[in-house]
């Protein structure tokens, strides 16, 4: 695919590109134009390819903006008019199940979704189950515990572990004594005394 085939947001494209657009679609919050309809499908495949690349080696769980930035840096000669469409394409990939989400909490206890590759769905599900089982058995699980408990390919990034612990908080399986803004470093079962 050449840069001339990349779809562009019509509100951000040059008048020449707008005139030359042979096909139009609504992409996210933009109206986008491209040479023809196939450009949209090919651009989506390009984004999927680079998303999978960004989410692997090492395995990463990323927010939508972070993933969009990672994908944008990988697409050659990407203009701003095309760059703004990446979010919409990522949302479509999530809708299709080509990318998967897990809900979690930020360090300020605000909910958000982290995205990962569907190739790792079983790995993530097994990791969450392992954390839940450990929580039941030991009443408390720390980031350090998680790094020893979970496969190295997942635990090599501390952020992955924080996201998975945050998921337990999100779904109400666990609570934490960490103050907002500090960063989740451990979770415990409710009604268990905190350990200092």
């Amino acid at each position, binding site marked *: 695919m050449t840069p001339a085939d990349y779809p562009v947001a019509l509100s951000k494209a040059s008048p020449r590109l707008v005139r030359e657009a042979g096909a139009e*679609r*609504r992409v*996210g919050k933009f109206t986008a134009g491209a040479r023809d309809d196939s450009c949209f499908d090919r651009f989506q495949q390009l984004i999927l390819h680079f998303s999978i690349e960004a989410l692997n080696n090492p395995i990463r769980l990323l927010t939508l903006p972070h993933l969009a930035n990672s994908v944008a840096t990988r697409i050659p000669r990407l203009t701003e008019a095309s760059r703004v469409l990446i979010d919409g394409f990522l*949302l479509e990939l*999530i809708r299709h199940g080509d990318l998967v989400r897990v809900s979690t909490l930020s360090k300020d206890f605000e*909910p958000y979704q982290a995205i990962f590759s569907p190739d790792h769905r079983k790995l993530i599900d097994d990791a969450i189950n392992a954390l839940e089982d450990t929580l*039941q058995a030991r009443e408390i699980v720390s980031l350090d515990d998680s790094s020893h408990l979970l496969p190295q390919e997942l635990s090599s990034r501390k952020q992955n572990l924080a996201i998975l612990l945050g998921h337990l908080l999100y*779904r109400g399986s666990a609570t934490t004594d960490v103050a907002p803004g500090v960063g989740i470093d451990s979770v415990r079962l*409710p*009604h268990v005394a905190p350990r200092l």
Partner: protein
Amino acid sequence: MLHLDSRAVAIGETGPVPVGEVSKGTRVLCMSQGKPRWVEVRASAFRESVGSTGVRVFTDAGDVLIGTGTSLVTSNGLRTGQDLVELRDPRTIGRMEGSWPLLETAATPNEPPTKEGAALIYERLSSLSLLDGSNGPLFRVGSHPKRLLGLFEQAVIRRRCLVEPGMAGWTWLAPQDQGSRSEMVAPNSETIADCALALWQLPKEGRYRLPLDHVEGRSFTLAVLYCCGVHVRTDYRPRYSPHYVDLELEATSRPHAEIQAVAAASAALLTEVTLSERGCYMVVSGLLCGQ
């Protein structure tokens, strides 16, 4: 026959009942020629089939997962799950738009739940909120005002509890070893509805929220609210692929529901239900399902 999510909730004579627990001989609420009737189930069978697909329809009056060949009653006649998937605008990317018809909704029952029905509802609310704690059972509810938590404790758990509020909109009730609550709570529609809402988080006054993967809790509590004559408006977000649902109470009912999103669901766990009569529409999750 109808193919319905086993976790969707029908209305039996004693109250809401998950479709997966409906059996031959159960009488369920249906609409026939605009009037509510109890219709006997002729057959009911669980159908797990790898590779089978269903369609989840999200509306402003709740959501339901149906088989691709099962229909919902719309203002334009019956539309199958597959019809509704195909009505999504295929030319949008990362958006959920479609030319969906309005769905007909079932009017709420005139009679509130009976005392027996209330007891069954409380029992199920108890099991839906139950977690295993290290020192005994825990009940997970939303972080609600003290009045509502006290009502839940009294009506559903029926034991005095220690309360631990959490950081993310959840609160946990831990029954104490001693201290059963002997005071009875009058099982009227208002108290039953309040106990159902206790399972939802309360991010803002008047707005309730549940993560979308709390399927059984959502389906059952929405059915309880329906049985109690409580009118609600649901809002599934984000639209392109919902991940949570917000709920607000409304003063009046609406005869139609608007579709907000439609999603194909693979490897759906469906129950096959055959009614003993034709030409009637089964009330499932407040919507009307037909063949």
